[in-house]
């Protein structure tokens, strides 16, 4: 049924006649295009131009368009190229194609140096907007929080508990596992280096202070930003894409109250719990390594730990947790609500949520370090 397409020139005195044969369909498009391009060069200045298509076995939009393209480029001045021998089957297709205006497509996105500089400039200028957006969301959440305090019945307990389960309970295994391993590594490295000075036992001091003040909470916050911050952004973002958030608004619900507050609250409650569990797991892991690898038996470890750390260290660590949780939650919700219509946008904002979340967590940690140092804790 399908035969190779051909386009042949038939000399007819003063007229230019082209005869198209074979299958003019999409699968032959590259061949057809080349043939048509060759034929276009034949122009000259004949009295009349015909394209005979009576021998064409099969025609689709691609073929019809290429014949139309040929017809247009051969038409010059008053001499219009004619299509001859069109079968009734295909005449409507050719008519349809004839209505097409071939507007050249303007490629807009070209990479230039000025364009790149412009993008950098815009990104820097956008930082201010980002911070303003975060403060805006913080204000909105606090306002809704106070409103809920005054009208406790509008508080969404079920939703909060659901998110607690997702963010806290289900995160326990992975958080405990990773902090346990980190505790092991810190202890092993500490013993390895302290042994040279005969100061093996000081590894307990290092482990205790480091885990309770910094590593425990910081590591857990970073993991939560990756695990739950991204989930929040993706959830809110896809709800935004499907106009679910607009639907809530039109029903008279405040999306902050229904969606953001329960998530924020769950995160603020979850992070201290996870940070505590993480710190305990790290201490346990460190103690285990100190015993098995460093020969510090558990009794000596615990005695030393009691001397090395005070409740202050624990408070310094755990106080940071809810603040970091709030930062992660706000960043995640702002990014989620900023998602536009496309899947690409969802991906960008989820990435941004995790990156910004981790960045702000570390910044907050630095601010806390300065603060605690200056009040002598």
């Amino acid at each position, binding site marked *: 049924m399908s035969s190779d397409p051909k386009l042949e020139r038939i000399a007819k005195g003063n007229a230019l006649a082209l005869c198209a044969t074979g299958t003019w369909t999409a699968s032959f498009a590259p061949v057809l295009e080349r043939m048509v391009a060759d034929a276009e060069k034949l122009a000259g200045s004949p009295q009349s131009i015909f394209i005979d298509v009576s021998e064409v076995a099969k025609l689709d939009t691609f073929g019809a368009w290429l014949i139309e*393209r040929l017809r247009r480029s051969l038409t010059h001045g008053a001499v219009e190229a004619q299509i001859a021998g069109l079968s009734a089957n295909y005449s409507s297709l050719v008519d349809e194609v004839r209505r097409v205006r071939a507007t050249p497509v303007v490629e807009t996105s070209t990479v230039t140096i000025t364009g790149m500089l412009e993008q950098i400039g815009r990104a820097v200028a956008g930082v201010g907007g980002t911070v303003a957006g975060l403060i805006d969301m913080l204000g909105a959440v606090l306002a809704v929080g106070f409103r809920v305090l005054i009208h406790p019945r509008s508080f969404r307990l079920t939703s909060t508990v659901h998110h607690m389960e997702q963010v806290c309970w289900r995160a326990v295994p992975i958080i405990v596992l990773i902090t346990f391993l980190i505790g092991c590594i810190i202890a092993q490295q500490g013993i390895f280096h302290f042994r040279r000075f005969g100061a093996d036992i000081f590894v307990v001091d290092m482990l205790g202070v480091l885990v309770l003040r910094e590593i425990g909470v910081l590591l857990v916050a970073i993991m939560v930003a990756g695990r739950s911050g991204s989930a929040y952004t993706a959830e809110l973002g896809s709800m935004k894409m499907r106009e679910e958030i607009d639907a809530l608004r039109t029903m008279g619900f405040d999306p902050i109250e229904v969606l953001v507050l329960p998530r924020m609250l769950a995160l603020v409650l979850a992070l201290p719990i996870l940070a505590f569990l993480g710190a305990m797991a790290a201490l346990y892991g460190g103690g285990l390594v100190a015993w098995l690898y460093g020969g510090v038996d558990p009794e000596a470890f615990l005695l030393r730990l009691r001397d090395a750390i005070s409740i202050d260290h624990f408070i310094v660590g755990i106080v940071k947790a809810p603040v970091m949780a709030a930062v992660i939650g706000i960043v995640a919700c702002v990014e989620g609500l900023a998602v536009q219509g496309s899947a690409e946008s969802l991906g960008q904002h989820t990435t941004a949520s995790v990156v910004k979340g981790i960045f702000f967590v570390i910044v907050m940690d630095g601010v806390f370090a300065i603060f605690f140092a200056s009040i002598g804790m």
Partner: protein
Amino acid sequence: MAKEAQSEIQNPIIRVRDITVQFGATRVLDGLNLDVKRGEILGFVGPSGAGKSVLTRTIIGLVPKVAGSIEVFGVDLDSSNTSQRRNVERRWGVLFQQGALFSSLTVRQNIQFPMREYLRVSQRLMDEITMAKLTMVGLKPEVAERFPSELSGGMIKRVALARALSLDPDLVFLDEPTSGLDPIGAGDFDELVRTLQRTLGLTVFMVTHDLDSLYTACDRIAVLGNGKIIAAGSIADMQASQHPWLRQYFHGKRARAVMG
């Protein structure tokens, strides 16, 4: 070769035999048989939840079936190898209920996506064909550089149809093409499907709820109920049928309004 071609013209383009589809314990399609003839527009109706979309998705291969066989273009989709299947997939186009346009690509890129994958043609030809397809589905060339989220519901349907038609398929599946369109837009769409079927020689498999579409666009109607085809035939056959659901459907208040 010629004999094969001959048989392809006479045989139905889609032949569905004893299809059974089950989700858990619920049997959605139960030993269903259906033929779609070459060049016709088949309207496919049935109550909500009867499994119209499931049948469409089963034929396309998105839903696994428990039993039965499906032949499209004379190729049994279960026993076919990958290249045969690719070949079949190249010859059909699907319009999903929600359009299913790629949200991170522009309209132009959406329509060119199948061409880019399956054909080796120049960018110029792809751009021109894209314009031709947009004109065919009644959209302005300016739409080409917009993203799907910047289009109205009716425009999304049209762009999705243009994408379904981008490789000049022989067969198109339309899943509720006129749902969510205003009556004038829906009427235009029916007209469009008719025109395209005439100009391109398409076979159209259309799932619909729209009585107007059935009257104006479809050559034949198949009705799904209890997991089987309960009736198939022309609109006159449907009106003459004594089946209770059909009677309600074609003689209800809305049907009378359509018939005038």
